[in-house]
């Protein structure tokens, strides 16, 4: 549905040229929820701003529904944009309008009549939990409340494509979940295509179908969410995936367990779904004369089996430990001995 070809955007500052987006090619399907992650300054915001031509590309092409967006005339672009909702990182609310009026704005633009508009806006206000604050001005709202107005506004005109720039990063987990559920339900009901920038991996995990990882303007990795999560290739991706179980790699806390003692070995077990049996740890305990002490980590059940990482201490004779490790390896779980580096 959205096809991006060799898209680049350069900014000229006094000292240097910043290659905010650098030769990006991508295809995003209709009805897909597409996540974009990357470090601060990687070019994520610039990338989505190119998608509705708020930023004119330096080079490259964007095709939306067979139509070249980059060559669209002013008027056609305007019409197209009415069907592309956008949630801004900095909200960009009109301070002169109340919450209600801000949300009604895209409807006014699209020429929806007052009655229908009111219904829609009231519904959205309810959905984003701002009931009772309709007549407040943005300056009277908290950060998260402003963000929610921005979200409601972007959804008001039933867009076909929704661009979200850190739409939930000012929100608490409860509100985030509500908003995400809302997005998923619209996505399913109306085949809304969503492109979603975030640095919160659980957002990606919860609702995205595919994810792209940006680094210095380039897309360095792209794929199905689970695939990328299970098998992150790039260092950046690994760092992001790690966020899902933030404690697992805390070397400080593992240090105490890593000793010279031959009879104890700290290993990292990496469950990658598929063949891995769930009862692996008790199987090992039963079959071999070792104790498996779970130190830290997290594991979760996905459609395709267990997925996650556990750090465990194997406690037993050296030989037995080695055999157990082989056994675990053969069950389809990656095993890695952790040493003090």
């Amino acid at each position, binding site marked *: 549905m959205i096809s991006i070809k060799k898209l680049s955007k350069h900014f000229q500052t006094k000292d240097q040229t910043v290659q905010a987006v650098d030769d990006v090619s991508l295809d995003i399907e209709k009805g897909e929820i597409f996540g974009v992650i990357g470090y601060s300054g990687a070019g994520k915001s610039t990338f989505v701003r190119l998608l*509705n031509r*708020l930023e004119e590309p330096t080079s490259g092409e964007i095709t939306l529904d067979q139509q070249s967006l980059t060559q669209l005339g002013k008027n056609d*672009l*305007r*019409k*197209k*944009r*009415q*069907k*592309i909702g*956008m949630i*801004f990182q*900095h909200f*960009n*609310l*009109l*301070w*002169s*309008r109340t919450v209600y009026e801000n949300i009604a*704005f*895209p409807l*006014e*633009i*699209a020429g929806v009549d007052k009655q229908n508009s009111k219904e829609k806006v009231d519904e959205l206000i309810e959905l984003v939990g701002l009931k009772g604050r309709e007549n407040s*001005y*943005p*300056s009277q709202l908290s950060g998260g409340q402003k963000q929610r107005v921005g979200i409601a*506004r972007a959804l008001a*005109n039933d867009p076909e494509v929704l661009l979200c720039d850190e739409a939930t990063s000012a929100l608490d987990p409860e509100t985030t979940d509500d908003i995400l559920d809302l997005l998923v339900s619209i996505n399913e009901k109306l085949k809304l295509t969503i492109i979603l920038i975030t640095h919160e991996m659980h957002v990606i995990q919860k609702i995205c179908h595919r994810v792209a990882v940006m680094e210095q303007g380039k897309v360095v990795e792209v794929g199905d969410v689970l695939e990328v999560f299970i098998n992150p290739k790039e260092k950046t991706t690994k760092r992001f995936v790690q966020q899902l179980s933030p404690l697992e790699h805390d070397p400080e806390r593992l240090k105490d367990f890593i000793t010279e003692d031959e009879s104890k070995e700290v290993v990292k077990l990496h469950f990658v779904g598929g063949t891995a049996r769930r009862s692996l740890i008790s199987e090992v305990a039963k079959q071999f004369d070792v104790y498996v002490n779970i130190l830290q980590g997290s594991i979760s059940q996905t459609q395709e089996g267990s997925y996650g990482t556990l750090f465990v201490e194997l406690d037993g004779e050296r030989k037995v430990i080695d055999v157990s490790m082989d056994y675990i390896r053969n069950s389809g779980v990656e095993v890695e001995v952790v040493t003090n580096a």
Partner: protein
Amino acid sequence: MLNELFPNVIMDDLWTATYETLYMTVISVIGTFILGIILGLVLYLTDRGNLWSNRLVNGITATLVNVFRAIPFIILILLLIPFTDFLMDTIRGPKAALPALIIGSAPFYARLVEIALKEVDKGVIEAAKSMGAKTHTIIFKVLLQESKPALVGGLTVTAIALIGYTAIAGVIGAGGLGDLAYMNGFQRRNNDVVFACTVFIVAIVFIFQWAGDFTAKKMDKR
């Protein structure tokens, strides 16, 4: 008592002059507002990087605006006489002063409008663009709305400057308080008349300023 302090002040004249000043000011403020907003919008929108970015139109508008600000007001009045005659069917009195007053102050207000529009957050303009707003909508629902306090502030300043201009418009018999002060007060050395007129003008200025401040404050929801 008053008669002793102000021996030369004729109340009827003062009221007539007040009426004339108000008449000229109010009508020309309205005209200036409309013309100034239009010119200011054109200046802003055709500037580089903005919605209608157009060097030629910008250049022409800027030239027009600058030329009309450049011509000394007294000469402007005289230059406009044929135009005034055509438009108002008279070249004398308060009514005849209106074209010159409006044409003299609209370019000025246009610049204030331009400055106010430049202060509008680029982000909200982008937001409106991203919703597919027509330029028309962006102008009326974003630019003019978000700059309201500054627009009103600028209009207040212009209105008060206009009160000053009406005094000069006395040369074509427009009357008004400034003219009364000059003709019956200053030229005849009747200090009481000058003083009375000034008090009346100050009162009008205060009312305009107060109304402007009040409106601007009321509109400012930041």
